[in-house]
Every structure is written in C-alpha cells, then in structure tokens.
C-alpha cells in the first residue's frame, strides 16, 4: 500500500511540476488576496502584527483548498479515478498519495508567500525558523489531508468547487486557530511556551486522529 501511495504521489507531483499551472495559479491567487487584505486592513499600522497569523493562515487555507480541489479535478477529467479503483488500488493508498502530493504543493506556496509577506508587511517571520517550519508542516498536513478526504468524497458533486470549502474550513478550524496563534507568537521571536504549547499538542493530536480516521474509513467511502 505504501508503495502505491508513493507512486500516486510521485505521479501527481510530476504532473504538476511539468506545467506548474495550478501551482502558479495558486501562488498568484495568494498574492492577489494579500493585496486585497492590504486594502481591507490598514497594513501600515502596528495592529497588523497581531493579525499576521490570521492573515497568513486564511491565505493558506484558501489556496490550499483550491489546490486540493484541482488535484481531484485532474483525476476526474478523463475518469482516471475510476480506472485506479477498478484496478484495485486501495482507496487508502490513493488518499495517502494524493494527500502527500497536496502537502508538497501547499508547502511550496507557503515557501514563496512567507518571505513575500515578511517583505511587504515589514514583519520578520523567520526569527524562529524551526518553529515556523513545524507549524507549517503540521497545519499544512491537516489542510491537505482533510481537503483530500472531502475532495474524494465530493468528487462527483456538481458543486464541488463550492462545497469543498464549506465542508473543509469548519473542519480544519481547530488546526487553523492553533496555527494562527502559534504563528503570531513565533513571529515575535518567542518560542511557544505555557499556554501556547497546548496549541502544539492540539495540532499534533489533530493530525494523528484524522490521519488514522481517514486511512481507516477511506476504503468504505470511495466505493458505494
């Protein structure tokens, strides 16, 4: 199963990095929303420090869901998903592979957006790079995993591009809330401690629980 998951992941990453179309579009989307934010919230005020985490993770949640959505659309355009299921690739392998590929995509977007944000909003986010990396990894996996699960479930829905955010955002709010809080703390150069460590534990717990749930349930979800 892990081998097949890996194959699916490699295939997805290769497909995307061939033309980089979805990645470029997601990046452009993130930058555009960054500009929108600058109109909505006075970006030169000191207040902006307090909502840095909020802005960033809303941004990443939005473009993450777009990327995930795209990743299933690609599978669906020529009914390739049916072929994979028919040739007995376990649904959990499919899920895992696609979630890993989507993680790569989301991390790529973050890798570009974080420095740009630092520059444009004049806030150094990289005071504690190892903590930032940890928060990004944990939260991006949450977005990617839950996004992939629900994209798989809504793959035949007419309204997928509308329904996916509606379902995924509320589900990942715990992870996002944690990420927002931690990013704010880390951006100040303070390693998380005390109350904030609860958020780290929440993120880890969230990832573990949902990964287990998804892998366990996936085989019954995809086939009706």
């Amino acid at each position: 199963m892990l081998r097949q998951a890996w194959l699916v992941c490699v295939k997805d990453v290769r497909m995307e990095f061939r033309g980089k179309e979805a990645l470029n579009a997601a990046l452009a989307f993130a930058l555009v929303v960054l500009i929108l934010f600058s109109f909505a919230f006075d970006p030169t005020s000191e207040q902006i420090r307090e909502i840095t985490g909020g802005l960033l993770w809303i941004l990443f949640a939005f473009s993450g869901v777009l990327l995930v959505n795209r990743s299933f659309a690609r599978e669906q355009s020529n009914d390739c998903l049916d072929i994979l299921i028919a040739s007995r690739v376990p649904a959990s392998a499919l899920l895992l592979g696609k979630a890993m590929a989507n993680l790569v995509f989301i991390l790529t977007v973050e890798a570009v957006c974080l420095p740009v944000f630092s520059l444009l909003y004049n806030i150094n986010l990289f005071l504690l790079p190892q903590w930032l990396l940890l928060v990004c990894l944990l939260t991006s996996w949450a977005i990617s995993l839950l996004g992939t699960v629900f994209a798989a479930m809504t793959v035949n829905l007419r309204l997928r591009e509308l329904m996916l955010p509606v379902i995924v955002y509320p589900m990942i709010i715990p992870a996002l809330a944690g990420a927002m809080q931690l990013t704010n703390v880390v951006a100040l150069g303070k390693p998380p401690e005390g109350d904030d460590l609860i958020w780290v534990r929440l993120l880890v717990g969230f990832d573990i629980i949902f990964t287990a749930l998804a892998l366990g349930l996936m085989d019954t979800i995809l086939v009706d």
Partner: protein
Amino acid sequence: MSVLKAERISKFFGHFPALRNLSFSFEPGSCVALLGRNGAGKTTLLEMMAGLSRPTEGTLTIGGRVSLLGHGIGVYDELSARENLNFFASLHPRGGDVDAWLEKVRLKEVAEAPLREYSRGMRQRLALARTFMGEPDLLLLDEPFTSLDDKAVALLQWLLAEALGRGATIVLSTHQIPEAMQLATHILFLEKGKLAYNGPRPEEMLGDSKWIYRTYGVAN
C-alpha cells in the same frame, strides 16, 4: 485466473431498481456482449463488476486482474504516453511491457510528448494500450466502439481477439451490435434491469442486429 460470477444481485438507486436479481457466471475465454436499451442497466452492471459500486443485494465474485475502459479514456492529459503507461504498469506487479505496447499502438515515435498535443485517435490508441497492457484477466469495456473510425475499430477488434486467445474474459456493452457480434461468444441481454437473455450468442444475431430485441424484448 479470471472468475466472473453473479448470484442474485440487485442494485437500487434509492428506491429505483436499476438491476434486479441477476445471476450469471462465465468461464475464462468468454466474450460477453452486454446488450439492452438506453437505461437498461448496462453501465451500472459494468461499474459494479469494476468495483466502483457494490450490489445492494446478492454477491458478485470477481477474480484476477481487472481492467476497465469506461466512457472517459482514463489516461492523464498532463503526462506523456510513456509516463502514462509507466504509471499504470507500476501499480501492478505484473504491469506489462511499456515499450512493446507503445510499439503496438504505433505511438513509439511520439511517446515523450504530453498527451494534450495528441489527436483524438492517438489518445484513443493510448487508452487501448492502457486497458489491454499487462494481460488483465477480466476486461470491462463500456461502449468501446463509440465514435471510432474503421481503423480504430479494427485495432480494437484485433486486441480483443488477442486477449480472448490468451484466455481473458471480456465483458463489453454496446449499441453497435454488428461490430461486437464478430467476437462475442455470449450475450447478456438486459431489459429494464432484468436479465432477459443469458447464454451463448445465437447464430441469428450475426446478420440481424435487432433479433434479440424482437425475440426476448418485452413487446412495446
């Protein structure tokens, strides 16, 4: 080894019975033509055999390596022909020889170009390679003759004959009866979700496509 056996299977979409109480079983080496009017349940049955959905009642036993050619062509536009075949081959231990298949469907020269530059015929040939590669035991084809020209039909028939030759089981649904009758050994004829005929292909079907509708169809 290919096994294909249905025992009293039914499929309901909500309350609507798409398939009712079908039983059949076929030996390896059979080529089953799945016939029936629009909405009779052909696609539903094929999807169930492919494992895309499960019967509401009854048991469906499928053995061996299954390969499906549905309405979509089932290859990725963003990859090249070779990458496509490599990927599908790598999913299985007995995946098949990619180079040989590229040769067979005459795509060797253009094997590295991304699919979206291909013409429709080339994509179809690749889809055929994807489906027949790696010696699948059970081939499920949903209206495979649709919008194929004479040459493509000939290629498909040749591939089907070859697969039959090595003992694969084939189930194909179609409305283009003459094209299918050349190879079919058996016929499953569905009428509104019920099995109206299940048996070897009658001689009469060779010349007269509508024979089965007249003989086993419900008067209407």
